[in-house]
């Protein structure tokens, strides 16, 4: 079924076809990698995806504009708010809806908290990939659970918030919640970050495994369509929060985390610094949260004018684009998600050959997959 051609291994020895996945401890979901191995070295790699294809884009065509909201959570179940926001922005742009300022700030706050939880999942996954017994993994999840408690208190759900609405957000944040949230982000979280750094980038064994592994230049990454922290670790300060600000990002003081080495260790450093940077942004958002309405009234049978539009947002994994087309009816004509990991993954056949099996998992861990978004 899958086109996979073996090449001759260097030295003329017979190669080994290794199927990593779809059920394998370190493919983060149901990703299937077909690897052609010469000993422990990868000669040829091909990702086989689609095991989680739920047809979200087709389902969206059968729902009203508001009902699609429910599906956006389920695209990337690790970065739910980013996906909701991308869809909301696309529809609001298409229908010409102005979002109140407080709603934008709330969205930014939740999205940045979500970036933290998403990067914590990456941290958990990557530490498992390099072979810890799950101790850093559990520490990351412990912290993530505390953020999920905030999610639950604000949105009513921990994983599938369905909180943003076209024209605003569904529930306001409770004033009593901001103080513990701020205390957590300003005091506890940086200490947790110290622990995360000590167990990953501070550990000599990890450094020996990651330093100089999978070095890709900025030109290579841009050419192959890679976005997000993977690209930023190679140098370019590409971040849509800075390049095309949306929400409250243009009013915040933050740094686009980059690294100029471009190896696996640099990708870890970038993401770990983004954790701190996101927490710092959240503290600013909490301190300067404006008062006001949280949503504008949008008709239940929303009918955006015929046309289409495309918006790009910075999800924790990279450039998340949403393309919506309307024919003037109450249902989307076309809903398309430009998934960052889909394109990051498409670069893997070009990036992985030549590396050891152990390195392949480290490099692959650097793109931070979430199968829900790749397969949609």
């Amino acid at each position, binding site marked *: 079924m899958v086109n996979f051609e073996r090449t001759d291994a260097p030295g003329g020895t017979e190669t080994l076809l290794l199927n990593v996945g779809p059920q394998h401890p370190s493919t983060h979901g149901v990703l299937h990698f077909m690897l052609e191995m010469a000993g422990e070295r990868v000669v040829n790699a091909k990702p086989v*995806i689609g095991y989680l294809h739920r047809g979200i884009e087709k389902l969206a065509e059968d729902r009203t504009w508001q009902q699609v909201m429910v599906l956006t959570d389920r695209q990337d179940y690790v970065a739910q708010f980013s996906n909701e926001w991308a869809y909301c922005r696309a529809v609001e742009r298409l229908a010409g809806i102005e979002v109140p300022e407080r709603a934008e700030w709330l969205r930014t706050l939740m999205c940045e908290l979500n970036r933290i939880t998403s990067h914590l999942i990456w941290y958990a996954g990557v530490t498992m990939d390099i072979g810890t017994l799950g101790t850093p993994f559990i520490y990351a999840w412990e912290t993530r659970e505390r953020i999920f408690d905030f999610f639950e208190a604000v949105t009513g759900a921990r994983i599938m918030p369905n909180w943003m609405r076209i024209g605003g957000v569904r529930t306001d944040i409770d004033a009593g919640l901001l103080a513990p949230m701020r205390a957590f982000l300003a005091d506890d979280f940086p200490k947790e970050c110290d622990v995360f750094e000590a167990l990953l980038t501070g550990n000599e064994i990890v450094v020996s495994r990651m330093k100089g592994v999978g070095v890709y230049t900025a030109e290579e990454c841009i050419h192959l369509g890679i976005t997000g922290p993977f690209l930023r670790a190679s140098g370019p300060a590409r971040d849509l929060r800075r390049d095309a600000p949306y929400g409250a990002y243009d009013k915040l003081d933050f740094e686009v985390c980059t690294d100029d080495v471009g190896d696996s260790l640099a990708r870890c450093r970038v993401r770990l610094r983004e954790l701190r940077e996101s927490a710092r942004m959240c503290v600013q958002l909490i301190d300067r949260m404006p008062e006001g309405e949280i949503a504008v009234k949008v008709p239940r049978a929303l009918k955006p004018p015929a046309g*289409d539009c*495309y918006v790009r947002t910075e999800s924790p994994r990279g*450039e998340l684009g949403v393309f919506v087309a309307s024919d003037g009816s109450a249902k989307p*004509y076309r809903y398309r998600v430009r998934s960052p990991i889909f394109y990051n993954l498409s*670069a893997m056949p070009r990036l992985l050959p030549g590396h050891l099996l152990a390195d392949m998992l480290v490099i692959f861990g650097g793109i931070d997959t979430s199968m829900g978004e790749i397969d949609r």
Partner: protein
Amino acid sequence: MRADVLDALVRHGAVLDVSGFDPRADVPLAAWAALHAELAYLGLEFSDITALDRIESVELVCWLLLSPGEQLSVRTSCPDERLVAPTLSFVYPPAEYGEREVYDLFGVVFEGHPDLSRILQPGDATIFPLRRSFELTETPW
């Protein structure tokens, strides 16, 4: 828009429309590959390739980045009787997977594509679900 990009678009017979949210350029199918080769040479980056089913035709939409914050859509139209388009995967490597997805869901065949196979659906699938003619069925309670 940059003058050289504008010039390339006009030379390949694109109909430019800047009244919408983002500038869009409709090009004839024959100029699709050549225009993209030139745009890539001019340094435009690939963002996404997708399609829109217009019943009598399938509209291919390719989103390019003029700068990290500015986007441009280049579109062409494949008639429904002959859903064939030249591939862009040699111009933009990520388009290889994007085109596989368009093929998988719309049935547009990309000529010269290195590996045009099903990507999201199983390899033995025979349907093109994102066509408007594909009806969703309701699961009973």
